[in-house]
């Protein structure tokens, strides 16, 4: 995990002390530290004004954030799926889970093949964090969707899709050479479009 919250150890004995401190602290402290890190990264990724150093914070990638958002989205959508339709709840969960991870993998691979020089997991981490607006939209639609006509449901979907796409496009476009930017951005757009559409119709 990331030790930037704690003091840097000066020598080996202090590192040992930190390790035992880590084991001795309560579980809630450990979890809160990780949650705070996820929240910090989330604000950093989704609110572009917070980025003062042009995306260098993203070098400390972690996959906990994407996992939490992926699981939350899959659980929200499978909770809403009836058992009487052709796709049961477990199908929807599996589809969303596989789609997010395989989709992030394919989009990152595409950016690398086009000549981008970014670490693989950095990009997966970013794409996972940008799934958060789709999460919000899925929760909105799950709770109030049955009372609203289709056109009203489209409004949060479009807003959240635009938010996700806009936050990740800035990063993805900076990875590849200038004449290939749109080529790297289009798969990201397709990825979030598919996720938004899926959360709309379930």
């Amino acid at each position, binding site marked *: 995990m990331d030790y930037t919250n704690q003091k840097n150890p000066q020598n080996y004995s202090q590192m040992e002390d930190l390790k035992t401190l880590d084991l001795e602290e309560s579980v809630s402290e450990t979890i809160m530290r990780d949650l705070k890190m996820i929240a910090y990264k989330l604000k950093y990724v989704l609110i572009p004004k917070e980025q003062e150093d042009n995306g260098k914070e993203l070098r400390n990638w972690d996959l906990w954030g994407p996992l939490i958002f992926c699981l939350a989205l899959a659980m929200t959508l499978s909770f809403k799926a009836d058992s009487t339709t052709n796709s049961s709840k477990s199908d929807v969960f599996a589809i969303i889970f596989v789609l997010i991870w395989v989709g992030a993998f394919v989009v990152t691979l595409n950016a690398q*093949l086009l*000549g981008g020089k970014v670490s693989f997991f950095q990009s997966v981490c970013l794409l996972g964090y940008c799934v958060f607006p789709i999460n919000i939209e899925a929760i909105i639609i799950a709770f109030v969707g049955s009372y609203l006509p289709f056109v009203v449901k489209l409004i949060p979907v479009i807003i959240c899709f635009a938010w996700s796409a806009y936050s990740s496009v800035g990063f993805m476009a900076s990875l590849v050479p200038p*004449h290939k930017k749109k080529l790297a951005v289009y798969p990201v757009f397709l990825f979030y479009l598919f996720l938004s559409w899926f959360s709309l119709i379930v």
Partner: protein
Amino acid sequence: MLDNLNQDVSILQPSLQMTDSQVQNRIRQMKMEDPDEQTCYQKFCNLFTIEYYREYFDVTTELVIAKVVNAFNPFSGTFFDIGGGIPELYGPFWILNTLIFTIALSVNIIKYMQLQPGEHFEYQFEIVPFLAIFMYLKTLIVPMIYRVALKCVSQDRLTLLHCFTIYGYSAVVMIPISLLNSIPNPAIQWMLLVYVLFAQTSFLTSNFNQELKYLPKEKKYMIVGLVAVVQITIMILYKFYFFSSFNYQQLGLVKKRMNTHILQHILGAN
């Protein structure tokens, strides 16, 4: 010797030039043929590195857009002149994925429009794995058939990758047509599919024709006939499996526990 590489190749094949990354790949291959310079990793694992495939993604935005616009024009026959006729895999791959998404979307829209007033809309999602597998297999196998046919008439300028490229771009016409296919009128749907058949076949044949100009007539007609037959088969499959209006219960055949219910429905409907 390596400096004259690009010139030597361009003398042999005047219409097909090499990009920088292709030249570098060729230089690397020539270095690697020297057994002292090859490491074990380079000998066997080259297929698994990303650099090996980077050559096929060496495109710019303008190039891709130009090729897509050209693919909408069935008669121009200039597809292989764009960008020097370099084969690439970016276009075919992402056009394929867009097409899968579009067809899944339009199948759901068709189903939505056929709802009776009291029914609740159930989206059809099992179609997507089948659709994806069908599309990927089609895009893998059909260019191989074309390449084999071209080899039979001893045409060696179009490699397998050229066939992949042109076949992938020919699928672009299907994307707006499948969105329009959700209009409930059956006459319009048939007309749209006939248009796609015609457009794709003439795009492929007019581009192969450029390369086939010097062959005797029988061989030319053989290639054209092969292209047309393959396209007709695929269009028939599209119409009767994906866009047909009475097939939606049958699509649930993939789920085991719905099997008896579905079989009864089919027997009842027939």
